[in-house]
């Protein structure tokens, strides 16, 4: 019985995590892909309050055919999503609000083109999570990334845990 409860909790957390993440341009729930593999890792699993939280992101084409992505800035191309230990999303920064079309001014995208990712190719980016979220409370945060792939729909990354230590 206890095992069943634990299993239920795990499944629920997994689903909740997915439910929180949505690609801006496609409202379908993103899913991990075995062909367009989206991997993320933290530069440092723990940061001090107010510090820089570097996130390494890779999108690899492990299929045998090219796929298409829209290239823009890293923050637009790879959407970071963060939830705290209660499953709540922390406040977005103003620049992230603008990119999600809920900011005080319209978003303007200067660099915007479709790019083909060939089999074996890997797109890489380093981003600062603090540019997207105001991590005002110390604690553990779950980080995922979403990326639209034209042929596969919204793709979800693995999840990583970021620890924000008190000052």
């Amino acid at each position, binding site marked *: 019985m206890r095992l069943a409860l634990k299993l239920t909790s795990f499944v629920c957390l997994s689903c909740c995590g997915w439910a929180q993440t949505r690609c801006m341009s496609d409202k379908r729930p993103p899913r991990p892909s075995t062909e367009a593999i989206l991997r993320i890792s933290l530069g440092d699993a723990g940061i001090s309050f107010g510090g820089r939280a570097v996130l390494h992101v890779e999108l690899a084409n492990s299929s045998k055919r090219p796929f298409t992505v829209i*290239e823009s800035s890293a923050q637009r191309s790879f959407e970071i999503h963060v939830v705290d230990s209660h499953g709540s999303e922390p406040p977005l920064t103003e620049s992230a609000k603008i990119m999600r079309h809920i900011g005080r*001014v*319209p*978003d*303007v995208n*200067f660099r*915007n083109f479709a790019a083909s990712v060939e089999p074996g190719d890997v797109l890489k980016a380093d981003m600062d999570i603090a540019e997207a979220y105001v991590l005002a409370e110390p604690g553990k945060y779950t980080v995922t990334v979403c990326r639209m792939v034209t042929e596969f729909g919204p793709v979800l990354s693995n999840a990583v845990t970021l620890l924000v230590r008190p000052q």
Partner: protein
Amino acid sequence: MAADNSNATNPPVVTTGSEVTFYYTAAGTSTVSYSVTTSGQTYQATTTFVVLSPTYTIATATSTVNVNQDNGWQIQLGRSLGTRGVSFTATVTQPTGFSGSSQWVQLVNSFSGKYTPNTLTCTTSGLDTVYPYRSGTSMTDSPNATLAAPFTQEEVSFSFTAYLMWQPSSPSIPVSIAKVNWGWSGTAVFSGSIWALSGAPVVTPPATTAQTASPLWVQVANATNNCH
């Protein structure tokens, strides 16, 4: 050391020493003199460098300004998928015996967005997002601006210069060989429940010219930082 640097850039501040780095950015010939003084005796040597540059052609194409819902409501030149706003395809012919690669660097010369009813105006200029904009001989771009409440009218104007850069395989800085000026402007209004174009948008067709000066910028263009 003394040199005819009419076809060079980044002339060295220090022209003394056993080795001086010098980058030529245009084709031509350059005479370089080198003097050594030792034990009160001065010796001088002179040589001439012949600098070769690639030749190029650039094919350009443009699309039309439209309002779409590809990523929420937006006004855009072309579409992100499908017909690109602009596409530049360069054919670069390398000098015989040399190799290298091409890349594009794009600058936002100016952007202006006027949003009503709050009469908010945003402006910017600078590097377009990242350096380089794209590796390879081809680039496309379909810039766009979000159309969203509380605004009911948005007027945007974009001006760009795309630089075709050549990176020789030998140790070198990337050098500019051509530039393409282009831009577009348009106005969208919200009426009822939809956004639509208002008036006739303008597309400034791409104009290609030879360019040997490097692109310069002091900031990355950000259309949301400077609003009043």
